[in-house]
């Protein structure tokens, strides 16, 4: 008998780690990219005549220095994670979902409507229902460009951008004309009922149960991508659509599916924001999470488990920026510069490889980010 029948394989988890680390010298590049960006940021601070140590201490203390700072950072990590997962899932199927922002809005809209318009439900029905409504709104908004791509080949980048505008304007119209809270002077919907609220995790803090949803979502997305036939197909279509087709998979079906799941996650992010934080939807609801999530997915190399650390990084930079400004007297725009540098170094990872004399990139990378452009 050949030896292989006695040997037990190291299991899917191990193989998966092997695939991940051999693909792109692991997560070394993103970590070094962050480090380099902070270093250059330090040079910028120093060159503009400010105190580097005070600035970075402010950044750190502002995001992790007190229980309240930590809670506020986690408040940001929640939508960053969910929306980052959304974009990462799209990347895995070779799709560039620029539309997380619009999907986020639609998720917020539908969940807030369910939240304030349906009365008399117990919390254990009302809250899940509102969350599902949000997920549905995002999924629908993602599925449309997915369907257009699959059926007529319309490029998802163009269509998701257009869907962003449509989503934002629909929210604005509905909130101002149809859903306006008559008791308020502001352009916003009525408050959702307490039965639809995502409860705070710690009394007295704004951190809400949406954070738990985000953590669960990380595992669900991982499970979906690596443990199900659907994920097997989505990743195969993303990595090599022609081979996937030759093996009998439907490219069109997987495009629609991936965009639907992607939109669903972004919709959940929107639902979390209104059900957990705002409790209503203002007409001038500005998130930006949808766009930052592209950067987060990029830094995470589209890996669900790496999305959360990347979201932590973004949350840290955003939340710490205020205290940094206060302590060192530098503009919060410096945070934008650092974020931009991180993205640039991750996208143009050859720079990092050259700087730190890393092994040149192997031919086979786990994800092709640019796939989806031009075909």
């Amino acid at each position, binding site marked *: 008998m*050949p030896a*292989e029948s006695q*040997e037990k*394989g*190291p*299991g*899917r988890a*191990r*193989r998966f780690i*092997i*695939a991940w680390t*051999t*693909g792109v010298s692991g997560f070394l590049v993103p970590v070094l990219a962050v480090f380099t960006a902070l270093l250059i940021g330090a040079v910028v601070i120093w060159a503009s005549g400010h105190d580097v140590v005070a600035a970075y201490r402010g950044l750190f203390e502002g995001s992790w220095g007190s229980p309240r700072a930590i809670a506020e950072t986690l408040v940001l990590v929640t939508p960053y994670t969910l929306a980052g997962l959304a974009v990462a899932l799209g990347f895995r199927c070779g799709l560039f979902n620029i539309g997380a922002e619009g999907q986020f809005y639609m998720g917020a809209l539908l969940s807030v409507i369910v939240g304030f318009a349906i009365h008399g439900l117990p919390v254990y029905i009302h809250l899940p229902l509102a969350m599902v409504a949000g997920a549905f709104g995002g999924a629908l908004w993602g599925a449309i460009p997915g369907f257009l791509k699959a059926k007529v080949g319309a490029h998802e980048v163009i269509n998701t951008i257009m869907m962003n505008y449509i989503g934002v304007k629909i929210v604005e119209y509905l909130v101002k004309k149809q859903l306006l809270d008559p008791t308020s002077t502001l352009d916003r919907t009525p408050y959702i009922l307490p039965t639809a609220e995502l409860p705070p995790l710690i009394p007295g803090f704004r951190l809400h149960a949406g954070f738990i949803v985000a953590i669960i979502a990380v595992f669900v997305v991982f499970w979906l991508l*690596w*443990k*199900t*036939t*659907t*994920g*097997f197909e989505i*990743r*195969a279509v993303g*990595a*090599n659509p*022609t*081979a*996937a*087709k*030759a*093996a*009998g*998979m*439907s490219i069109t079906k997987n495009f629609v599916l991936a965009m639907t799941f992607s939109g669903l996650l972004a919709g959940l992010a929107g639902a979390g924001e209104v059900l957990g934080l705002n409790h209503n939807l203002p007409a001038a609801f500005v998130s930006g999470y949808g766009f930052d999530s592209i950067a987060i997915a990029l830094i995470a190399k589209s890996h669900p488990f790496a999305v959360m650390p990347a979201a932590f990084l973004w949350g840290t930079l955003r939340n710490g920026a205020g205290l940094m400004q206060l302590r060192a007297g530098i503009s919060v725009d410096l945070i934008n510069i650092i974020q931009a540098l991180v993205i640039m170094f991750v996208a143009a990872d050859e720079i990092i490889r050259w700087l730190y004399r890393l*092994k040149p990139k*192997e*031919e*086979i*990378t*786990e*994800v092709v980010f640019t796939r989806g452009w031009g075909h």
Partner: protein
Amino acid sequence: MALALSMRGISKAFPGVQANDQIDFDLERGEIHVLLGENGAGKTTLMNILYGLYRADAGQIYLNGREVHIATPSDAIAQGIGMVHQHFMLVPVFTVTENTMLGVESTRYGLFLRQEEAAQRIRDISEEYGLEVEPEAYIKDIPVGVQQRVEIIKALYRQADILILDEPTSVLTPQEAEELFQVMRSLVDEGKSIIFITHKLKEVFAVADRITVLRDGHVVGTTTPDKATEAMLAEMMVGREVILTVEKEAPEVGEIVLEVEDLWVLDDRGLPVVNGVSLQAKAGEILGIAGVQGNGQTELVEALTGLRSTARGRVRILGTDTTHASPRKILEKGVGHIPEDRHKHGMVLSYPIADNLVLSTYYQAPFAHGMVINGEAIDDNGRKLIAEFDIRTPSEYALAGTLSGGNQQKLIVAREFSRPIRLLISAQPTRGLDVGSIEFIHQKLIERRDAGTAILLVSVELDEVMALSDRIAVIYEGEIVETLPIAEATREGLGLLMAGARKEGAIAR
């Protein structure tokens, strides 16, 4: 005899591989020196070092007795070295003249191209060496064989004395290859020197003055054609005895498995490339499709496997109409597919080997229960097939992209043969493979035939089609011009048919 080129002690290592190890290679002026070896033996690495594409870790290069340092291809060109790559480096929408001038344009006032002058020089070159071309023709309008001449002219235009030809015959008909050999002879008669890279033994005897065989980055030996035999060279290449002919019994032909009637298929530009093909493949036989690359074989295979829609006609597999069926329907009907381009259609390079081995069956038991994947079953299957098909890899978790070409092809064969198939559509099953892998895959195909599978073998390697097929259909410009049993097929006859002559013409000759 004077040495045009001498490479001494050339070594080059890539991560994990010693591609060249202390290689000595001499080229005399006016000789055709064949560099023979399997894929991965180090031929191309050595030539890329000579052409300035790689830098050697150690060793010296002497041209006409003088040491030179070649760091870039422009250095190589300046030293009189020209290379004709396996994949042509031509701009399709440029003319022959424009392509030839590209990079070395001669201009008036530094701005206006002197096209006429260049065209005249091309005519001179083409006359001198018998390289017939039309300087005003566009590359996209001329046949592959002529495009190759343009590549050679490009090198001569840059005043190359040493020409490197990298597997030049893989895109040619036997007749075109013969023409190329004549050109090569007239080139060496004029004092040029040629390094000819190949893995086809027959060609060696047609052109070589000397032969150097490489294996695993070492020089195994240098010999001349009169002292060598095919079997001997094959053994030098592989390191063991090789069976060059495929042994097979007479076929036991059964029912009709594949039936194609008047099939028309369009290419990506909407032009008909398969024009009314009709054919039948029966259980237990190998039907070979012979033809020069680009005569509709690719589209025919894509149409049969559901990857391309058909314009007209009918395809039936085991009596079921599959003309418009999806790839999955066709696969589930018991069709195996070894695609022509293994990277495009055969595998996901960033997937582990085990996953690639279930690329078309991952949703079936035991690999999945409902929508949940059974990793253990996939891994067990992977280990089993890796052992059975001798896929060389450290583990079933290694990514398919880390395998060598031969092992990637074995992976595809393993996957297709692990399913219950009644029809195997096999396109260029051994393209770019080494002798050992070719031998292996040929054996497997014969085994499968003897087990009663109908096999459609599409190949541009005439030797392969002739060695394996029970019947041969010749395709030319999208039409099957002739179908004949193997007993009636001759190299010359098939070659003429592949070039467009009807059977009558072949006999008349």
